[in-house]
């Protein structure tokens, strides 16, 4: 699975995700990547999210929209919302994976609960960062 989230100079957020699914999948299985609110979500009032991991769990947890809701209705920061959903809620369910997120202020979060996540990030003020493991 691959994905991207971005904030442009006009304050607009966007998210996109694309995947080949799981090796050996059957019966037309669909994961979270193409499901708006589960694997992908963007809202200028909150954040943009793209997920990767065990899709069945991300669908059941409605991960991307859940993070947006925690920010919009409960007033959590992007980091608080991401950490809660990825490192507490998903872990308790047994869901492995992670996500990338940007809020409307340009804050970036890249939480994951797996061994690693292939990721890179950059904003107008900082150098490019590329990581695979913690």
């Amino acid at each position, binding site marked *: *699975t*691959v*994905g*991207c*989230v*971005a*904030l*442009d*100079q*006009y304050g*607009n*957020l*966007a*998210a*996109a*995700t*694309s*995947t*080949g*699914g*799981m*090796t*050996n*999948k*059957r019966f*037309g299985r669909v*994961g979270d*990547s*193409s499901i*708006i609110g589960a*694997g*992908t979500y*963007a*809202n*200028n009032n909150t954040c943009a999210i793209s997920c*990767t*991991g065990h899709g*069945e769990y991300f669908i059941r947890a409605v991960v991307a929209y859940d993070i947006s809701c925690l920010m919009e209705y409960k007033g959590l920061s992007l980091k608080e919302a991401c950490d809660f959903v990825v490192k507490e809620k998903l872990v308790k*369910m047994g869901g492995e*994976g992670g*996500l*990338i*997120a*940007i809020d409307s*202020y*340009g804050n970036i979060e*890249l939480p994951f609960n*797996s061994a*690693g*996540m*292939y*990721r*890179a*990030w*950059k*904003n*107008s003020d900082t150098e*490019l960062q*590329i990581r*695979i493991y913690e």
Partner: protein
Amino acid sequence: MKKYAIAIHGGAGTILRHLMFTEKENMYKQGLQDAITIGEQILKMGGSSLDAVESSVSSLENFPLFNAGKGAVFTNKGTHEMDASIMDGLTLEAGAVCGVSNIKNPVQLARLIKEKSGHVFLSGPDAEAFAHKMSLPTAGPEYFYTQERFNQWQEVKETDSYQLDHTDKKENSEKKFG
């Protein structure tokens, strides 16, 4: 210049660190760098976040080590079934597609679904027909074939197991029920 920001991912999981050779790690990092640079240039020049995410994801889809587009994994039938989505935070408009087999860049199809189809989510062969109508680039199975993904499939194809993007362990199909 007003602030802009971008982040990308190429999947979670990852093989064990001691099995990740430097040369391969550098290839992964190059794929990530190329993809984020494309998106960042769009943002730097005043382009939209929507254009940036579409372009960066297209680049990742074209990179064979990631599980999307050209490097997509094999299904139980030895085919490729790809899914993608895109969402605009300003308008809350979205486009999504699932189960397409011959579209080079499914994220571009997702965006066209958002903007031209009058719908949000299309699936399977009829989504491919819409892509054809929109003149999106297509390719046969040979384009999506990679030896590494084929080998990965061979390890599990006679079982009920499946595998995540980057992993050395097999998952049992019952696990998802919790």
